[in-house]
């Protein structure tokens, strides 16, 4: 839709985004593949992790040489943080390394599921919001937690569809729908998408955007999958706005009876 015939910008904390597909930058073969896949996805928000620089290999390349921060909104995340303290520390480092107050906040509760520690998430979000951060929280598909995150000042919430990297698709569509109905800030479905139909479905349910990484980076052809995801998110969004027909048990003829022999 971005750049197409139905301009439909997503607005979060006063910032306007053209694409409703947001992408991660992990798990690609190399930076060149990362760059191409992101370009094919049409995304303008790109999430990145914060890590120690490699001080032994002087020739190691920088991700930002491939993803121009002038062209993309760089959204640092606190991936890998299991405590409030770590998540806050990584967020502050991200702000110092970057140019904006945006952070995709993750406080992970468990290594096997990578489900968020929602109590820690709320605590960390409060600290960071007080420091002027724009906190986009990676949360569970729990409507009450989503509500609380909105109440404390998160300008969007990012509930999961399924565990990170699982590709299981939307495991709890009813909870996601409740979140979309009850939360008054944009809802970005983050994590768990496996293929294009999952992304389309999330958008048809009324998600404001979808964030994914593994579904694209882990595909046999990441660049082709990035293109598929771009179409899926656009198609799902258009279908949502156009308004689907109600489901009925029996047929309704689409051709008139009149004029039949």
């Amino acid at each position, binding site marked *: 839709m971005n750049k197409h015939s139905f301009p439909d910008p997503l607005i979060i904390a006063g910032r306007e985004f053209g694409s409703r597909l947001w992408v991660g930058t992990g798990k690609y073969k190399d930076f060149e593949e990362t760059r191409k896949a992101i370009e094919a996805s049409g995304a303008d928000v790109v999430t990145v992790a*914060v890590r120690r*620089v490699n001080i032994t290999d002087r020739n190691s390349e*920088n991700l*930002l040489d491939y993803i121009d921060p002038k062209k993309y909104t760089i959204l640092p995340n606190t991936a890998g943080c299991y405590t409030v303290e770590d998540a806050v520390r990584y967020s502050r480092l991200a702000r110092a390394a970057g140019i904006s107050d945006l952070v995709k906040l993750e406080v992970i509760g468990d*290594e096997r599921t990578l489900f968020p520690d929602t109590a820690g998430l709320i605590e960390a979000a409060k600290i960071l919001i007080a420091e002027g951060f724009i906190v986009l929280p990676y949360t569970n598909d729990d409507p009450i937690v989503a509500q609380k995150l909105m109440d404390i000042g998160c300008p969007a919430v990012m509930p999961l569809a399924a565990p*990170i990297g699982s590709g299981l698709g939307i495991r709890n569509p009813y909870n996601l729908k409740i979140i979309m109905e009850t939360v008054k800030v944009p809802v970005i479905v983050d994590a768990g998408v496996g293929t294009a139909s999952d992304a389309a479905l999330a958008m048809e349910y009324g998600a404001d955007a979808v964030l994914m990484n593994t579904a694209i980076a882990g595909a046999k052809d990441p660049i082709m999958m990035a293109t598929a995801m771009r179409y899926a998110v656009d198609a799902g969004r258009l279908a949502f706005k156009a308004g689907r027909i109600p489901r009925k048990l029996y047929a309704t003829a689409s051709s008139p009876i009149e004029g039949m022999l």
Partner: protein
Amino acid sequence: MIFHDFLIHQQYSRSFIMHIIVNGESQERSNPLTVANLLESLDLRSERVAVEVNLKILDRSEFPTWNLQEGDTVEIVSFIGGGASQQRS
């Protein structure tokens, strides 16, 4: 330079060498050394990194004037590819 700083400067200048920890790695460095000097010696562009010294995050404008001291723990971080949480390594 006030007298106290001058004494400290003298004290370290005599030794010339200090030990600091950079990203978990112990390094021998000549003293004085600013954060900007350190980044330059590592071929790192200051606009791409964040620097923490003894758990205090520095403002980029402090890099050229921040003198590292014997025993300092320095963390230099940057953005890398990542979408969402990885398992602890």
